[in-house]
Protein backbone atom coordinates (compact mmCIF):
# COMPACT_ATOMS: atom_id res chain seq x y z
CA UNK A 1 0.00 0.00 0.00
CA UNK A 2 1.33 3.43 -0.91
CA UNK A 3 1.49 6.09 1.78
CA UNK A 4 0.72 9.70 0.87
CA UNK A 5 1.84 12.89 2.57
CA UNK A 6 -1.10 15.27 2.59
CA UNK A 7 -0.05 17.73 5.26
CA UNK A 8 3.20 19.34 6.33
CA UNK A 9 3.91 21.78 9.11
CA UNK A 10 7.23 23.11 10.32
CA UNK A 11 8.51 25.49 12.94
CA UNK A 12 12.25 25.79 12.73
CA UNK A 13 15.20 28.16 13.03
CA UNK A 14 13.94 29.56 9.70
CA UNK A 15 10.77 30.69 11.44
CA UNK A 16 7.22 29.50 11.42
CA UNK A 17 5.73 27.62 8.54
CA UNK A 18 6.57 26.20 5.15
CA UNK A 19 7.05 29.53 3.41
CA UNK A 20 9.70 30.74 5.87
CA UNK A 21 11.60 27.45 5.50
CA UNK A 22 11.35 27.43 1.72
CA UNK A 23 12.55 31.04 1.44
CA UNK A 24 15.57 30.36 3.64
CA UNK A 25 16.48 27.21 1.72
CA UNK A 26 16.08 28.91 -1.63
CA UNK A 27 18.27 31.82 -0.57
CA UNK A 28 20.77 29.65 1.34
CA UNK A 29 20.06 31.81 4.38
CA UNK A 30 21.24 30.34 7.68
CA UNK A 31 18.91 30.10 10.65
CA UNK A 32 21.83 29.83 13.07
CA UNK A 33 22.12 32.90 15.30
CA UNK A 34 23.10 34.03 18.76
CA UNK A 35 21.03 32.37 21.47
CA UNK A 36 18.39 34.69 22.92
CA UNK A 37 15.81 32.42 24.57
CA UNK A 38 18.03 31.76 27.58
CA UNK A 39 20.85 33.67 29.25
CA UNK A 40 23.77 32.14 27.39
CA UNK A 41 26.42 34.49 28.77
CA UNK A 42 28.05 31.83 30.95
CA UNK A 43 28.19 29.26 28.13
CA UNK A 44 31.13 28.73 25.81
CA UNK A 45 28.72 28.05 22.98
CA UNK A 46 26.30 30.95 22.54
CA UNK A 47 24.93 30.14 19.08
CA UNK A 48 22.21 27.78 17.93
CA UNK A 49 19.50 27.20 15.42
CA UNK A 50 16.90 28.74 17.66
CA UNK A 51 13.25 29.08 16.71
CA UNK A 52 12.67 32.85 16.53
CA UNK A 53 10.54 34.16 19.40
CA UNK A 54 7.89 35.62 17.11
CA UNK A 55 7.33 32.18 15.58
CA UNK A 56 5.87 30.68 18.74
CA UNK A 57 5.70 32.99 21.72
CA UNK A 58 2.47 33.25 23.63
CA UNK A 59 0.96 30.14 22.05
CA UNK A 60 -0.05 26.90 23.71
CA UNK A 61 0.91 28.21 27.12
CA UNK A 62 1.14 25.63 29.84
CA UNK A 63 3.08 23.16 27.69
CA UNK A 64 6.79 22.54 27.51
CA UNK A 65 8.60 24.24 24.65
CA UNK A 66 9.01 20.96 22.71
CA UNK A 67 5.27 20.33 22.93
CA UNK A 68 4.45 23.86 21.84
CA UNK A 69 6.59 23.38 18.72
CA UNK A 70 4.82 20.09 17.94
CA UNK A 71 1.40 21.70 18.35
CA UNK A 72 2.30 24.60 16.07
CA UNK A 73 3.69 22.29 13.37
CA UNK A 74 0.77 19.87 13.69
CA UNK A 75 -1.68 22.77 13.33
CA UNK A 76 -0.15 23.75 10.00
CA UNK A 77 -0.05 20.14 8.79
CA UNK A 78 -3.64 19.39 9.78
CA UNK A 79 -4.84 22.60 8.19
CA UNK A 80 -3.19 21.62 4.92
CA UNK A 81 -4.64 18.10 5.00
CA UNK A 82 -8.12 19.49 5.40
CA UNK A 83 -10.99 17.46 6.76
CA UNK A 84 -9.70 13.90 7.00
CA UNK A 85 -13.14 12.49 7.68
CA UNK A 86 -11.75 9.33 9.26
CA UNK A 87 -13.01 7.59 12.37
CA UNK A 88 -10.97 9.20 15.21
CA UNK A 89 -10.09 5.70 16.40
CA UNK A 90 -8.30 5.16 13.09
CA UNK A 91 -6.10 8.26 13.39
CA UNK A 92 -2.76 7.83 15.15
CA UNK A 93 -0.03 10.09 16.48
CA UNK A 94 3.56 8.83 16.31
CA UNK A 95 6.12 11.52 17.12
CA UNK A 96 9.84 11.28 17.72
CA UNK A 97 11.86 13.26 20.22
CA UNK A 98 15.42 12.90 21.36
CA UNK A 99 15.33 14.81 24.62
CA UNK A 100 11.70 15.50 25.55
CA UNK A 101 10.74 18.34 27.89
CA UNK A 102 14.15 19.85 28.58
CA UNK A 103 12.75 23.25 29.50
CA UNK A 104 10.56 21.79 32.25
CA UNK A 105 13.26 19.45 33.57
CA UNK A 106 15.87 22.17 33.60
CA UNK A 107 13.58 24.58 35.45
CA UNK A 108 12.39 21.87 37.87
CA UNK A 109 15.83 20.69 38.84
CA UNK A 110 17.20 24.20 39.04
CA UNK A 111 14.44 25.01 41.51
CA UNK A 112 15.16 21.94 43.58
CA UNK A 113 18.95 21.80 43.59
CA UNK A 114 19.94 25.42 43.19
CA UNK A 115 17.13 27.23 44.92
CA UNK A 116 16.00 24.71 47.51
CA UNK A 117 12.52 24.85 46.05
CA UNK A 118 10.04 22.17 45.17
CA UNK A 119 9.21 20.43 41.89
CA UNK A 120 5.77 21.62 40.74
CA UNK A 121 3.08 19.02 40.06
CA UNK A 122 3.29 19.55 36.32
CA UNK A 123 7.02 18.79 36.28
CA UNK A 124 6.51 15.16 35.28
CA UNK A 125 3.52 15.40 32.90
CA UNK A 126 5.06 18.28 30.97
CA UNK A 127 8.54 16.84 30.61
CA UNK A 128 7.80 13.22 29.69
CA UNK A 129 8.91 12.18 26.22
CA UNK A 130 5.38 11.50 25.01
CA UNK A 131 3.97 14.81 26.28
CA UNK A 132 4.09 16.32 22.79
CA UNK A 133 2.37 13.34 21.20
CA UNK A 134 -0.26 13.33 23.92
CA UNK A 135 -1.01 17.01 23.37
CA UNK A 136 -1.29 16.52 19.61
CA UNK A 137 -3.62 13.52 20.07
CA UNK A 138 -5.82 15.48 22.44
CA UNK A 139 -5.93 18.57 20.23
CA UNK A 140 -7.10 16.63 17.14
CA UNK A 141 -9.00 13.87 18.91
CA UNK A 142 -6.74 11.21 17.40
CA UNK A 143 -7.67 8.04 19.24
CA UNK A 144 -5.72 5.47 17.25
CA UNK A 145 -2.16 4.26 17.79
CA UNK A 146 -0.27 6.76 19.92
CA UNK A 147 3.30 6.45 21.07
CA UNK A 148 6.56 8.31 20.94
CA UNK A 149 9.85 7.15 19.55
CA UNK A 150 13.24 7.78 21.09
CA UNK A 151 16.51 7.06 19.28
CA UNK A 152 18.56 10.18 19.90
CA UNK A 153 19.08 12.10 16.64
CA UNK A 154 17.25 9.47 14.58
CA UNK A 155 14.01 9.66 16.62
CA UNK A 156 11.73 11.39 14.16
CA UNK A 157 13.05 9.45 11.16
CA UNK A 158 12.21 6.25 13.02
CA UNK A 159 8.80 7.70 13.94
CA UNK A 160 7.98 8.52 10.32
CA UNK A 161 9.04 5.02 9.26
CA UNK A 162 6.78 3.48 11.88
CA UNK A 163 3.90 5.75 10.88
CA UNK A 164 4.31 4.62 7.27
CA UNK A 165 4.24 1.00 8.42
CA UNK A 166 1.10 1.58 10.49
CA UNK A 167 -0.71 2.86 7.38
CA UNK A 168 0.65 0.03 5.22
CA UNK A 169 -0.44 -2.54 7.79
CA UNK A 170 -3.93 -1.10 7.90
CA UNK A 171 -3.59 -0.18 11.57
CA UNK A 172 -4.60 3.41 10.89
CA UNK A 173 -6.22 5.47 8.15
CA UNK A 174 -4.10 8.50 8.97
CA UNK A 175 -1.11 9.11 11.20
CA UNK A 176 0.13 12.46 12.41
CA UNK A 177 3.88 11.95 12.58
CA UNK A 178 7.21 13.74 12.68
CA UNK A 179 9.28 15.00 15.53
CA UNK A 180 10.05 17.79 17.93
CA UNK A 181 12.87 18.83 20.21
CA UNK A 182 13.74 21.92 22.23
CA UNK A 183 17.14 21.15 23.74
CA UNK A 184 18.43 24.70 24.17
CA UNK A 185 18.77 24.73 27.94
CA UNK A 186 22.00 25.53 29.78
CA UNK A 187 22.30 21.93 31.00
CA UNK A 188 21.96 20.36 27.57
CA UNK A 189 24.29 22.86 25.92
CA UNK A 190 26.88 22.27 28.66
CA UNK A 191 26.52 18.54 28.08
CA UNK A 192 27.26 18.95 24.38
CA UNK A 193 30.17 21.24 25.16
CA UNK A 194 31.61 18.41 27.25
CA UNK A 195 31.49 16.10 24.23
CA UNK A 196 33.69 18.61 22.38
CA UNK A 197 31.70 18.32 19.19
CA UNK A 198 30.15 21.80 19.06
CA UNK A 199 31.19 24.32 16.44
CA UNK A 200 31.80 27.28 18.67
CA UNK A 201 32.01 30.39 16.54
CA UNK A 202 30.08 32.94 18.52
CA UNK A 203 31.12 35.79 16.24
CA UNK A 204 29.94 34.18 13.01
CA UNK A 205 26.92 32.01 13.82
CA UNK A 206 25.81 31.56 10.20
CA UNK A 207 29.21 30.21 9.21
CA UNK A 208 29.72 27.86 12.15
CA UNK A 209 28.18 24.70 10.71
CA UNK A 210 30.34 23.46 7.83
CA UNK A 211 29.36 19.91 6.86
CA UNK A 212 31.76 18.00 4.59
CA UNK A 213 34.18 20.95 4.53
CA UNK A 214 37.76 20.21 5.55
CA UNK A 215 37.58 23.06 8.07
CA UNK A 216 34.41 21.79 9.76
CA UNK A 217 34.40 22.31 13.50
CA UNK A 218 31.45 20.32 14.70
CA UNK A 219 27.71 20.56 14.99
CA UNK A 220 25.44 23.46 15.92
CA UNK A 221 22.53 22.65 18.23
CA UNK A 222 19.07 23.54 17.04
CA UNK A 223 15.41 23.13 17.91
CA UNK A 224 12.06 22.92 16.21
CA UNK A 225 9.44 20.53 14.93
CA UNK A 226 8.13 19.18 11.67
CA UNK A 227 4.89 17.25 11.43
CA UNK A 228 3.36 15.32 8.54
CA UNK A 229 -0.06 13.86 7.95
CA UNK A 230 0.22 10.45 6.29
CA UNK A 231 -2.69 8.59 4.74
CA UNK A 232 -3.17 5.68 2.43
CA UNK A 233 -2.61 6.96 -1.08
CA UNK A 234 -5.91 5.63 -2.39
CA UNK A 235 -7.99 7.10 0.40
CA UNK A 236 -6.22 10.45 0.14
CA UNK A 237 -6.94 10.49 -3.58
CA UNK A 238 -10.53 9.40 -3.04
CA UNK A 239 -11.23 12.29 -0.70
CA UNK A 240 -9.59 14.70 -3.14
CA UNK A 241 -6.71 15.72 -0.90
CA UNK A 242 -3.68 17.43 -2.39
CA UNK A 243 -0.85 14.89 -2.27
CA UNK A 244 2.50 16.53 -1.53
CA UNK A 245 4.52 13.38 -1.85
CA UNK A 246 4.80 9.91 -0.48
CA UNK A 247 6.78 8.01 2.09
CA UNK A 248 7.95 5.17 -0.10
CA UNK A 249 10.06 3.17 2.31
CA UNK A 250 12.05 3.17 5.49
CA UNK A 251 14.65 1.17 7.33
CA UNK A 252 16.22 0.97 10.76
CA UNK A 253 19.53 -0.62 11.72
CA UNK A 254 21.84 -0.65 14.70
CA UNK A 255 25.61 -0.51 14.67
CA UNK A 256 25.65 -2.66 17.81
CA UNK A 257 28.96 -1.01 18.54
CA UNK A 258 30.29 2.23 19.89
CA UNK A 259 27.88 4.59 21.62
CA UNK A 260 29.10 7.74 19.87
CA UNK A 261 31.37 6.68 16.99
CA UNK A 262 29.30 5.94 13.89
CA UNK A 263 29.88 2.85 11.78
CA UNK A 264 29.72 3.11 7.98
CA UNK A 265 28.45 -0.45 7.74
CA UNK A 266 25.38 0.17 9.89
CA UNK A 267 24.53 3.34 8.00
CA UNK A 268 25.06 1.67 4.61
CA UNK A 269 22.76 -1.19 5.55
CA UNK A 270 20.05 1.26 6.53
CA UNK A 271 20.38 3.07 3.19
CA UNK A 272 20.22 -0.19 1.22
CA UNK A 273 17.27 -1.52 3.21
CA UNK A 274 15.32 1.72 2.78
CA UNK A 275 15.89 1.61 -0.99
CA UNK A 276 14.85 -2.01 -1.05
CA UNK A 277 11.73 -1.32 1.04
CA UNK A 278 10.80 1.42 -1.44
CA UNK A 279 11.78 -0.82 -4.39
CA UNK A 280 14.29 1.70 -5.60
CA UNK A 281 17.60 1.23 -7.35
CA UNK A 282 20.52 3.52 -6.61
CA UNK A 283 20.07 5.07 -10.07
CA UNK A 284 16.50 6.13 -9.16
CA UNK A 285 17.69 8.45 -6.42
CA UNK A 286 17.66 12.12 -7.31
CA UNK A 287 18.92 13.41 -3.98
CA UNK A 288 20.05 12.38 -0.52
CA UNK A 289 19.50 14.61 2.48
CA UNK A 290 22.48 13.57 4.58
CA UNK A 291 22.70 13.35 8.33
CA UNK A 292 25.67 15.69 7.72
CA UNK A 293 26.36 16.91 11.23
CA UNK A 294 29.71 18.56 10.39
CA UNK A 295 31.49 16.58 13.07
CA UNK A 296 34.87 14.97 12.45
CA UNK A 297 33.32 11.55 12.98
CA UNK A 298 30.13 11.75 10.94
CA UNK A 299 30.98 13.26 7.59
CA UNK A 300 33.66 10.84 6.27
CA UNK A 301 31.80 7.85 7.73
CA UNK A 302 28.56 8.91 6.11
CA UNK A 303 30.34 9.52 2.80
CA UNK A 304 31.76 6.00 2.97
CA UNK A 305 28.34 4.60 3.83
CA UNK A 306 26.71 6.27 0.82
CA UNK A 307 29.43 4.86 -1.45
CA UNK A 308 29.01 1.39 0.06
CA UNK A 309 25.26 1.47 -0.39
CA UNK A 310 24.98 3.13 -3.81
CA UNK A 311 28.16 1.87 -5.46
CA UNK A 312 29.01 3.70 -8.68
CA UNK A 313 25.78 5.70 -8.52
CA UNK A 314 27.04 7.52 -5.42
CA UNK A 315 29.15 9.97 -7.44
CA UNK A 316 26.20 10.93 -9.60
CA UNK A 317 23.82 11.46 -6.68
CA UNK A 318 23.64 14.93 -5.16
CA UNK A 319 23.92 14.81 -1.36
CA UNK A 320 23.47 17.82 0.91
CA UNK A 321 23.27 18.64 4.57
CA UNK A 322 20.58 21.17 5.37
CA UNK A 323 21.97 21.12 8.92
CA UNK A 324 24.45 23.64 7.53
CA UNK A 325 21.45 26.01 7.39
CA UNK A 326 19.25 25.04 10.35
CA UNK A 327 21.62 23.24 12.71
CA UNK A 328 21.06 19.93 14.43
CA UNK A 329 17.59 19.75 15.96
CA UNK A 330 18.37 16.45 17.69
CA UNK A 331 15.40 14.06 17.51
CA UNK A 332 13.45 16.48 15.33
CA UNK A 333 16.12 16.65 12.66
CA UNK A 334 14.89 13.76 10.52
CA UNK A 335 11.43 15.29 10.26
CA UNK A 336 12.79 18.80 9.67
CA UNK A 337 15.14 17.51 6.97
CA UNK A 338 12.45 15.51 5.18
CA UNK A 339 10.31 18.65 5.31
CA UNK A 340 13.13 20.79 3.87
CA UNK A 341 13.81 18.23 1.11
CA UNK A 342 10.14 17.95 0.23
CA UNK A 343 9.67 21.71 0.08
CA UNK A 344 12.80 22.30 -2.02
CA UNK A 345 12.24 19.45 -4.48
CA UNK A 346 8.59 20.35 -4.94
CA UNK A 347 9.82 23.80 -5.81
CA UNK A 348 12.38 22.39 -8.26
CA UNK A 349 15.68 22.93 -6.46
CA UNK A 350 18.19 20.99 -4.39
CA UNK A 351 18.87 22.58 -1.01
CA UNK A 352 22.58 23.37 -0.65
CA UNK A 353 25.25 22.54 1.89
CA UNK A 354 26.42 26.00 2.87
CA UNK A 355 29.84 26.89 4.29
CA UNK A 356 31.46 24.19 2.20
CA UNK A 357 34.58 26.11 1.23
CA UNK A 358 37.44 23.64 1.71
CA UNK A 359 37.04 20.25 0.06
CA UNK A 360 37.98 17.30 2.24
CA UNK A 361 39.56 14.34 0.42
CA UNK A 362 37.61 12.03 2.74
CA UNK A 363 34.37 13.68 1.65
CA UNK A 364 34.34 13.46 -2.12
CA UNK A 365 30.72 13.34 -3.23
CA UNK A 366 28.57 16.05 -4.82
CA UNK A 367 27.37 17.95 -1.76
CA UNK A 368 25.53 20.74 -3.66
CA UNK A 369 27.99 23.27 -2.23
CA UNK A 370 26.80 26.71 -1.15
CA UNK A 371 24.16 27.43 -3.82
CA UNK A 372 20.78 25.83 -4.42
CA UNK A 373 20.65 23.97 -7.73
CA UNK A 374 17.76 23.49 -10.14
CA UNK A 375 16.54 19.94 -10.33
CA UNK A 376 13.88 17.69 -11.71
CA UNK A 377 14.61 15.12 -9.00
CA UNK A 378 11.56 13.52 -7.43
CA UNK A 379 12.93 10.70 -5.33
CA UNK A 380 15.11 11.22 -2.30
CA UNK A 381 16.45 9.57 0.81
CA UNK A 382 16.81 11.23 4.20
CA UNK A 383 19.36 9.75 6.60
CA UNK A 384 19.44 10.14 10.36
CA UNK A 385 22.04 8.47 12.54
CA UNK A 386 21.68 8.67 16.31
CA UNK A 387 24.05 8.19 19.20
CA UNK A 388 23.89 4.59 20.26
CA UNK A 389 24.51 3.57 16.67
CA UNK A 390 20.84 3.83 15.75
CA UNK A 391 20.27 4.50 12.09
CA UNK A 392 17.07 5.42 10.26
CA UNK A 393 16.66 6.14 6.57
CA UNK A 394 13.42 7.24 4.94
CA UNK A 395 12.74 7.08 1.19
CA UNK A 396 10.35 9.68 -0.20
CA UNK A 397 8.89 10.78 -3.49
CA UNK A 398 7.83 14.31 -4.21
CA UNK A 399 4.83 15.49 -6.18
CA UNK A 400 5.84 18.68 -7.90
CA UNK A 401 3.91 21.89 -7.42
CA UNK A 402 1.54 21.93 -10.41
Amino acid at each position, binding site marked *: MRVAITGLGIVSPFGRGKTAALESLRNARSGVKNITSIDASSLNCRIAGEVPADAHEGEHKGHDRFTRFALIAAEEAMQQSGDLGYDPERVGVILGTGLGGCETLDASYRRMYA*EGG*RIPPMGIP*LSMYNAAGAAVSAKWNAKGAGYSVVSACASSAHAIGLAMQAIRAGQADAVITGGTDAPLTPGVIRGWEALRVLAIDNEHPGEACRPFSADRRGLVLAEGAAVFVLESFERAQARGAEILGEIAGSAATSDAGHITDPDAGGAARAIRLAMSDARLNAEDLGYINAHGTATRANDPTETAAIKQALGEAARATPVSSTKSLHGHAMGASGAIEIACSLLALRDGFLPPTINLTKPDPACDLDYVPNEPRQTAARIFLSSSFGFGGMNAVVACAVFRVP
Partner: protein
Amino acid sequence: MHDFVVAEISRARNGAGAFARLDRQDAALGARGVFEAAEGEEETGAEQDPRGIEEREAAKHAAIIRIVTRGEIEEKLVAIVQQEKNISQDLLRPETPLAEAGIDSLDSLTILFAIEEQFHISIPDDRARAITTFGDLIDVVQDLLPAA
Protein backbone atom coordinates in the same frame (compact mmCIF):
# COMPACT_ATOMS: atom_id res chain seq x y z
CA MET B 1 -6.85 43.25 48.18
CA HIS B 2 -6.34 42.87 51.86
CA ASP B 3 -3.41 40.62 51.48
CA PHE B 4 -1.08 42.30 53.91
CA VAL B 5 -1.87 39.89 56.70
CA VAL B 6 -0.99 36.75 54.86
CA ALA B 7 1.81 38.53 53.10
CA GLU B 8 3.23 39.40 56.48
CA ILE B 9 3.24 35.76 57.42
CA SER B 10 4.90 34.65 54.28
CA ARG B 11 7.45 37.39 54.48
CA ALA B 12 8.11 36.36 58.02
CA ARG B 13 8.74 32.82 56.88
CA ASN B 14 11.24 33.45 54.17
CA GLY B 15 11.82 37.12 53.85
CA ALA B 16 10.16 37.21 50.46
CA GLY B 17 7.12 39.04 49.20
CA ALA B 18 5.46 35.78 48.40
CA PHE B 19 2.40 37.27 46.84
CA ALA B 20 4.21 39.23 44.23
CA ARG B 21 3.05 36.67 41.69
CA LEU B 22 -0.58 37.46 42.37
CA ASP B 23 -0.08 40.78 40.68
CA ARG B 24 1.16 39.10 37.54
CA GLN B 25 -1.74 39.16 35.14
CA ASP B 26 0.22 37.41 32.42
CA ALA B 27 1.44 34.37 34.27
CA ALA B 28 0.88 31.24 32.24
CA LEU B 29 -0.90 28.21 33.56
CA GLY B 30 1.90 25.77 33.04
CA ALA B 31 5.50 25.11 33.65
CA ARG B 32 7.26 28.17 32.38
CA GLY B 33 4.57 30.35 33.89
CA VAL B 34 4.75 28.62 37.23
CA PHE B 35 8.50 28.58 37.31
CA GLU B 36 8.98 32.10 36.09
CA ALA B 37 6.46 33.35 38.57
CA ALA B 38 8.19 31.48 41.33
CA GLU B 39 11.56 32.86 40.35
CA GLY B 40 10.22 36.35 39.94
CA GLU B 41 8.67 36.07 43.34
CA GLU B 42 11.94 35.39 45.02
CA GLU B 43 13.84 38.00 43.11
CA THR B 44 11.18 40.58 43.76
CA GLY B 45 11.15 39.64 47.39
CA ALA B 46 14.87 39.99 47.71
CA GLU B 47 14.82 43.38 46.08
CA GLN B 48 11.79 44.68 47.91
CA ASP B 49 12.80 43.57 51.35
CA PRO B 50 15.82 45.58 52.30
CA ARG B 51 15.77 44.38 55.91
CA GLY B 52 18.55 42.32 57.35
CA ILE B 53 18.09 38.79 58.61
CA GLU B 54 17.76 39.82 62.26
CA GLU B 55 15.16 42.42 61.45
CA ARG B 56 13.22 39.87 59.43
CA GLU B 57 13.42 37.32 62.21
CA ALA B 58 11.94 39.87 64.60
CA ALA B 59 9.18 40.65 62.14
CA LYS B 60 8.45 36.96 61.88
CA HIS B 61 7.44 36.74 65.51
CA ALA B 62 5.30 39.80 65.17
CA ALA B 63 3.64 38.47 62.06
CA ILE B 64 2.65 34.98 63.08
CA ILE B 65 0.44 36.23 65.85
CA ARG B 66 -1.66 38.23 63.44
CA ILE B 67 -5.19 37.02 63.03
CA VAL B 68 -6.06 35.78 59.57
CA THR B 69 -9.78 35.81 59.00
CA ARG B 70 -11.62 33.25 56.96
CA GLY B 71 -12.73 35.98 54.60
CA GLU B 72 -9.15 36.97 53.98
CA ILE B 73 -8.15 33.38 53.28
CA GLU B 74 -11.07 32.94 50.90
CA GLU B 75 -10.19 36.07 49.01
CA LYS B 76 -6.62 34.94 48.67
CA LEU B 77 -7.64 31.45 47.54
CA VAL B 78 -9.94 32.88 44.89
CA ALA B 79 -6.98 34.85 43.58
CA ILE B 80 -4.73 31.79 43.56
CA VAL B 81 -7.30 29.60 41.84
CA GLN B 82 -7.96 32.26 39.24
CA GLN B 83 -4.24 32.63 38.71
CA GLU B 84 -3.94 28.95 37.91
CA LYS B 85 -7.21 28.47 36.11
CA ASN B 86 -9.46 30.93 34.35
CA ILE B 87 -12.64 30.50 36.39
CA SER B 88 -15.40 32.97 37.14
CA GLN B 89 -15.62 34.01 40.77
CA ASP B 90 -19.30 32.99 40.75
CA LEU B 91 -18.18 29.37 40.53
CA LEU B 92 -15.92 29.73 43.54
CA ARG B 93 -18.49 29.63 46.32
CA PRO B 94 -17.70 27.60 49.43
CA GLU B 95 -20.40 25.04 48.65
CA THR B 96 -19.38 24.54 45.00
CA PRO B 97 -17.60 21.26 44.26
CA LEU B 98 -14.30 22.07 42.58
CA ALA B 99 -15.07 19.57 39.82
CA GLU B 100 -18.21 21.54 38.96
CA ALA B 101 -16.10 24.65 38.63
CA GLY B 102 -14.11 22.82 35.95
CA ILE B 103 -11.12 22.06 38.16
CA ASP B 104 -9.86 18.55 37.40
CA SER B 105 -7.54 16.45 39.53
CA LEU B 106 -4.39 17.73 37.86
CA ASP B 107 -5.61 21.32 38.18
CA SER B 108 -6.15 20.81 41.90
CA LEU B 109 -2.59 19.54 42.28
CA THR B 110 -1.29 22.70 40.67
CA ILE B 111 -3.58 24.84 42.81
CA LEU B 112 -2.56 23.04 46.01
CA PHE B 113 1.07 23.51 45.08
CA ALA B 114 0.56 27.25 44.58
CA ILE B 115 -1.29 27.48 47.90
CA GLU B 116 1.49 25.64 49.72
CA GLU B 117 4.12 27.84 48.13
CA GLN B 118 2.33 31.06 48.88
CA PHE B 119 0.99 30.36 52.36
CA HIS B 120 4.14 28.45 53.29
CA ILE B 121 2.16 25.54 54.58
CA SER B 122 2.30 21.85 53.78
CA ILE B 123 -1.02 20.15 53.06
CA PRO B 124 -0.80 16.42 53.91
CA ASP B 125 -1.94 13.99 51.19
CA ASP B 126 -4.91 12.66 53.18
CA ARG B 127 -6.22 16.16 53.81
CA ALA B 128 -5.72 17.04 50.15
CA ARG B 129 -7.63 13.94 49.00
CA ALA B 130 -10.58 14.85 51.23
CA ILE B 131 -11.09 18.22 49.56
CA THR B 132 -14.23 18.30 47.43
CA THR B 133 -15.59 21.82 47.59
CA PHE B 134 -14.00 25.22 47.58
CA GLY B 135 -15.11 25.49 51.21
CA ASP B 136 -13.11 22.35 52.07
CA LEU B 137 -10.09 24.05 50.62
CA ILE B 138 -10.62 27.12 52.78
CA ASP B 139 -11.03 24.89 55.86
CA VAL B 140 -7.78 23.08 55.22
CA VAL B 141 -5.81 26.27 54.74
CA GLN B 142 -7.39 27.85 57.81
CA ASP B 143 -6.51 24.79 59.90
CA LEU B 144 -2.93 24.76 58.75
CA LEU B 145 -2.19 28.45 59.08
CA PRO B 146 -0.57 29.54 62.30
CA ALA B 147 -3.65 31.25 63.75
CA ALA B 148 -3.97 33.42 66.79
